[in-house]
């Protein structure tokens, strides 16, 4: 459990010379039951880790796809406690795949910082991702996560100068989240120009910590390309777009995950 399982997942992928594949799905979207089935389907598809979203009313790092999904989940009554309980129920079913909770700061503060970290850890989450918490403001939460031995991921952006890349990388535990684009989450047809160089700049500061690339990734060939230079690939909006409105979201999520991983995995 915790940090160690995230390390093992990256090591496993590395040993197979492929990037770790990490889809994002908002808990409670489109409703609680369906979100559980989607996550179970992603596990069945063989993903390495899962980012589970904690919906927030004002997700300012997210584009329209994740905003809409968050809003639908909230309209269907999801709460922070509800999210935590969903992850617990997945662990109770025996799911071992590492899970990281991605949520904005305000619901976390309303729940109570230390309580939030403890509750996620107790429910079986292995790390936290907080998009509006810069490294400078992360001291308390970092300490709580360290105490519970779960990851607190930090971000880098294409706009980050070297000293900020170093700051993010040095504070990150679990992995460094490389935001691939200058922009919010959402489907892009092409990878950002210069992505490889930028990822190399991050790796130069990361001191061996895994680096995973997210934001805008939407195609199997993106996964293949990023796999050549990064340790992991994160896909959110493209998955939601493919599965959220499908007649059977779980099946659609399974098919989507398989298709995205296909170029970097031998058939199993």
């Amino acid at each position, binding site marked *: 459990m915790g940090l160690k399982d995230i390390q093992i997942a990256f090591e496993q992928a590395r040993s197979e010379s492929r990037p770790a594949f990490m889809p994002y799905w908002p808990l409670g979207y489109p409703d609680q039951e369906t979100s559980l089935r989607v996550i179970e389907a992603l596990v069945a598809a063989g993903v390495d880790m899962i980012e589970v979203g904690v919906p927030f009313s004002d997700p300012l790092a997210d584009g329209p796809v994740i905003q809409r999904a968050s809003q639908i989940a909230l309209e269907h009554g999801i709460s922070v406690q509800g999210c935590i309980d969903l992850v617990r129920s997945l662990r109770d079913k025996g799911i071992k795949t590492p899970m990281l909770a991605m949520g904005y700061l305000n619901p976390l503060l309303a729940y*109570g910082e230390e309580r939030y970290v403890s509750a996620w850890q107790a429910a079986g989450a292995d790390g936290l991702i907080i998009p509006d918490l810069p490294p400078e403001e992360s001291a308390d939460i970092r300490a709580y996560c360290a105490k519970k031995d779960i990851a607190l991921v930090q971000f880098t952006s294409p706009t980050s100068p070297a000293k900020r890349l170093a700051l993010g990388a040095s504070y990150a535990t679990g992995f460094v989240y490389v935001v691939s684009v*200058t922009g919010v989450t959402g489907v892009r047809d092409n990878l950002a120009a210069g992505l490889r160089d930028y990822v190399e700049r991050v790796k130069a500061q990361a001191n061996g910590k895994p680096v995973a690339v997210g934001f805008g990734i939407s195609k199997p060939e993106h996964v293949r390309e990023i796999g050549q230079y990064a340790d992991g690939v994160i896909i959110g909006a493209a998955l939601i777009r493919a599965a959220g409105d499908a007649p059977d979201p779980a099946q659609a999520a399974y098919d989507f995950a398989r298709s995205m991983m296909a170029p970097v995995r031998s058939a199993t």
Partner: protein
Amino acid sequence: MPNQAEAPETEIILPDQDGKFGIYGGRYVPETLMPALDDLIDAYEELRDDPGFRAEFDHLLATYVGRPTPLSHAKRLSEHLGGAQIYLKREDLAHTGAHKINNALGQALLAKRMGKQRIIAETGAGQHGVATATACALLGLKCVVYMGTVDMARQEPNVFRMRLLGAEVRGVETGSKTLKDAVNEAIRDWVANVQDTYYIIGSALGPHPYPLICRDFQSVIGREAREQILTQAGRLPDEIIACVGGGSNAIGIFQAFLNDPVKLVGVEAGGYGIETGKHAARFAEATPSAGAGVSDANLPHARVGVFQGMKTYVLQNDDGQIAETHSISAGLDYAGVGPEHVYLRESGRVEYTSATDDATLHAFHTLCQYEGIIPALESSHAVAEAMRRAPEMSKDAILLVNLSGRGDKDLNTVLNAGKH
């Protein structure tokens, strides 16, 4: 009686190096924006005391904005109320009809000095949008304004004004389709276009250094008002009253009086009444610690939170989702408040209260009829509080109200609310 010291050293409460006023403020934004905020801090630090920049700004304030704005003694209103003498700082007479132009122009100048050619802004009532569009037209900058579609419908004349001034107005369909959603959308635009774009936030809020920059550009209100009241009345006022949405007009007038023996009062939007839960009064039942003292989970309560880049009091539900607020004035209809106000409240220096929609409308009509001034509904909140206080004060007491804007934009709202 307050002393009449000429020019006391005003102690400016600087945010600390993390941009905090006490524990409030700071920078809580996605990593993509952190370098842009660093650049802005550096650029502003350099220009803040640059005589050339100051001179250019002051020149435009005098020759374009129409500053100094007058200080008017509201004699008939004071007589009618039978107590304190009420003075009005006439920001309604600034170009574009509100104090917003001070900040928009200052920041547009700053953007130009930084070499940014594209300006974005959010707007609720449309006053900041109009002010920004105006500043951009004056300085030859491209301007995009985000506005919730609900606000676009109720403030249609301002949408037309912005377009006349050459701005592109982009409707925001997400969330409650009002001010907070317009801010989110502007931030998303900024995240995507940060290299060539400057975001002019309309009030003393958002991530550091915005609350500081806005305060500095608005503090001209207080500097003028202090000088004017000393000239006209021969002494400092007993109390100063200003409305507080994000809080820029209030912080602008309070700033010059922080070290004076003058009571400072901020007035929030009481909406239909605090007890209804339909208001925008962040200080009304605020509890300083997370999760404490919340009685009814269905009513929004203000707690310390992080919203749109800053740590401040935020109206929210028990689960930390941002509440939808209500006010008759679009400009005060916002779930967060500028972080320096939280600091000033907790330090006890400023007192905060609220005025309901009804009290505000009554004040609006009263000022129209007794003084021949049509105030903005935002500013009418401050007038309402002055009308509550004045009768209880002696006739030689002085109440100074910041009349932050004019009410032409609100005529439809007032007509629809019925004649009082």
